[in-house]
């Protein structure tokens, strides 16, 4: 079965080709079956492969499909590599991917671009599978760019609206900055080690580089650049909130469960390089910490249901980076897994809410949806609980592991831990703010254009099996996913899950209690029956105070990063482009022709057409020439 590993990305790729070549002539049923079915087949194959893999003692396995390019010392195959880490990733991608595809058949049912949607989705799944299966960095880069492209296409899926196009371009260009850094990292690795095969690099690097050597630092920093871009960490996080312009299933699949975690995967995959560069690893931890706090604060101020979830995603990936930074590789992967479940669940549930409310995104225009949208409500409760890491949900186990690992960090343990716990508190605050505002309190929902849409205007929850089933499965996984053990210990020599806690009982208890405290405060501010009175009053007090207002605006705008980049990079670039539209180099050469033309118009004056003038000039020339000869 493992020999068929090449079929994993081949199924969705075939689905993509079929959908593209049919040029939209398929019925939606057929397109849906091909789109979702191909990923489903991949998932089945992935399950069979993993059974075989685990039964055979988790031996890493690689298979070369064909020789890609072989130039001098560069020897790159289309080779897939399978170990515990890859296994977790392919199961997430194909499994969660399949569920989201299934959900999309319901969600997108009325969209005219149905087949196009599924073709992009299939291409995405194929690229993502190639990314995680790649045994060399070039192939990984192929998947890496492929998912970026699909992300671009899907964010801008509703292309009528230029804002969507802007968001899509922003996503692609910002991640491309990271990608370029990663590509340079590849060049550096190759020029130093002479190979781009990941396993060979991991073997060679420790033998050739000493810990903390400049090359190791440069290489891992460049790879980190790629990871930061893809995973929307500081300072390249600005694209992800805008990426919510795409259809909600996209946000669930690409911008929550899979693609954005590719950075985490990359660092985990090349973890030996990062171990060789402790300074960079520390940067990873602090990038994670800064990002999770920044995103946590920002999420608290957002009004758009999807942007809240987007910032929450950035924040959770921040946790994963934190884990990577402190060397808790397994914890990071574990959190990646649980996050995929609960964040996909939250996005899909949000999608249901949005669909039911006719594409209303503003949470303050919802309210009291508990009765009207029971399925979404319960999904949100489960998902938020897991996100907040309430005890015994899946998120609890993974976040717990991360925080304990952070505490173990030799020099900055306490700082990282406190930051992480503060982040957990913020997480509780904003995620339950979302729940309380949307599902409790009074309804603020106004049906738009009720006259025109008599039968469409009502708030009716779509609970077709295609949409209900994925939610159910994901809810179950979000609750109990913490019991899964990720088979990655063989991959990471050190940094396995910390079985025994080194933290004191007090700290451990604090860690568990803080999120609950967060939920309670959130209830006070947004959820209690006095929400309309006391909570609102309190919030108003906070906002009216100068500092509060400033912070509100600052956090709402995502800490002003967008504005910063706009002024520092985008506007100068545009201005420069505007100024130099005509290409200044051209002017240089054209000036030559101006000189020639000027000389011409000067010399033309000598051409009077008067014969005697010509004769005189002739004689004058003669006199001069003879004079030169005679009176030298």
């Amino acid at each position, binding site marked *: 079965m493992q020999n068929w590993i090449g079929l994993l990305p081949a199924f969705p790729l075939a689905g993509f080709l079929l959908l593209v070549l049919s040029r939209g002539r398929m019925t939606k049923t057929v397109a849906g079956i091909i789109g979702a079915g191909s990923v489903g087949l991949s998932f089945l194959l992935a399950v069979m492969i993993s059974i075989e893999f685990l039964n055979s003692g988790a031996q890493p396995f690689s298979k070369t499909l064909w020789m890609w390019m072989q130039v001098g010392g560069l020897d790159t195959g289309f080779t897939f590599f399978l170990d515990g880490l890859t296994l977790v990733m392919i199961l997430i991608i194909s499994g969660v991917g399949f569920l989201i595809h299934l959900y999309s058949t319901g969600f997108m049912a009325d969209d005219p671009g149905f087949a196009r949607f599924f073709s992009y989705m299939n291409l995405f799944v194929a690229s993502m599978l190639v990314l995680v299966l790649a045994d060399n960095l070039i192939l990984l880069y192929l998947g890496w760019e492929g998912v970026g492209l699909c992300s671009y296409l899907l964010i801008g899926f509703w292309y009528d609206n230029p804002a969507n196009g802007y968001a899509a371009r922003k996503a692609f260009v910002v991640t491309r900055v990271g990608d370029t850094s990663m590509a340079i990292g590849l060049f550096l690795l190759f020029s130093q080690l002479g190979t781009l095969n990941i396993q060979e690099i991991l073997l060679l690097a420790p033998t050739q580089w000493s810990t903390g050597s400049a090359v190791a630092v440069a290489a891992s920093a460049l790879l980190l650049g790629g990871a930061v871009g893809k995973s929307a960490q500081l300072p390249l996080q600005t694209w992800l909130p805008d990426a919510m312009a795409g259809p909600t299933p996209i946000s669930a699949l690409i911008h929550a469960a899979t693609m954005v975690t590719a950075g985490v995967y990359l660092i985990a995959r090349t973890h030996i390089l990062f171990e060789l560069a402790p300074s960079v690893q520390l940067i990873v931890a602090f990038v994670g910490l800064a990002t999770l706090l920044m995103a946590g604060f920002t999420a608290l101020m957002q009004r758009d249901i999807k942007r809240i979830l987007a910032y929450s995603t950035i924040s959770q990936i921040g946790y994963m980076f934190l884990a990577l930074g402190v060397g808790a590789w397994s914890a990071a992967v574990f959190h990646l897994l649980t996050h995929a479940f609960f964040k996909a669940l939250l996005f899909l549930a949000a999608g249901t809410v949005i669909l039911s409310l006719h594409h209303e995104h503003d949470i303050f225009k919802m309210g009291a949806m508990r009765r009207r949208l029971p399925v979404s409500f319960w999904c949100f409760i489960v998902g938020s609980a897991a996100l907040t890491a309430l005890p015994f949900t899946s998120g609890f186990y993974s976040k717990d592991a991360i925080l304990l690992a952070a505490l173990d960090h030799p020099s900055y343990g306490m700082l990282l831990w406190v930051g992480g716990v503060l982040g957990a508190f913020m997480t509780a605050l904003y995620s339950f703010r979302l729940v309380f505002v949307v599902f409790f309190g009074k309804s603020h929902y106004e049906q738009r254009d009720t006259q025109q849409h008599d039968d469409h205007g009502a708030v009716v929850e779509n609970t077709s099996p295609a949409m209900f089933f994925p939610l159910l499965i994901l809810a179950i996984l979000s609750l109990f996913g913490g019991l899964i053990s990720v088979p990655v210990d063989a991959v990471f020599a050190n940094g396995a899950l910390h079985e025994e806690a080194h933290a004191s009982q007090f700290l451990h208890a604090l860690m568990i209690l803080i999120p609950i405290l967060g939920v309670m405060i959130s209830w006070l501010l947004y959820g209690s029956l006095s929400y309309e009175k006391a909570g609102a009053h309190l919030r108003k007090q906070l906002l009216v105070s100068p500092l509060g207002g400033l912070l509100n605006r600052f956090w709402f705008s995502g800490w002003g990063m967008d504005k910063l980049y706009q002024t520092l990079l985008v506007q100068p670039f545009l201005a420069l482009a505007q100024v130099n539209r005509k290409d200044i180099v051209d002017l240089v050469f054209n000036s030559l022709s101006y000189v020639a033309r000027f000389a011409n118009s000067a010399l033309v004056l000598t051409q009077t057409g008067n014969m005697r003038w010509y004769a005189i000039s002739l004689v004058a020339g003669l006199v001069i020439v*003879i004079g030169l000869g005679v009176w030298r």
Partner: protein
Amino acid sequence: MIFLFYTAAIVALIATIAVIVSTNVVHALVYLIISLLSVAVIFFALGAPFAAMLEAIVYAGAIMVLFLFVMMMLNLGQATQDEEKAWMQPRLWIGPGTLVALLLAQLTSVLFTQDVAISPVEVGVLDISVLLFGPWLLAVELASMLLLAGLVAAYHLAKK
């Protein structure tokens, strides 16, 4: 012979200057003929009787007659003569005059580096003919071609 040379030279000079300053075309032509004839005399004095003959017959005879015919055809009257007088302004002569004086100075300064006297020994028709029909045959043919071309061109140009 020396006397003949210098006399003819003075006549030629005077006649030539008269040509370029006269306002009447026909008068100028007559002066030109005188100038050409005196040059023919100089040729004779230099011992080139064949050249002198040709100068007198072809230049002063044929070519100048051609000129005369054309002048008669054009029939330039008194008006032209007045016009000529009007054009004949001294300041027009300053520029060309200086240039030409310079040129003359240059030429004389080159020529006076020579110091050879010519003893006019007659070079007869025979010598010339030997050369013309010997080494210069091709040039003669070319000259005939040139004349032919001139004939055709003149015919076409003068046609209405």
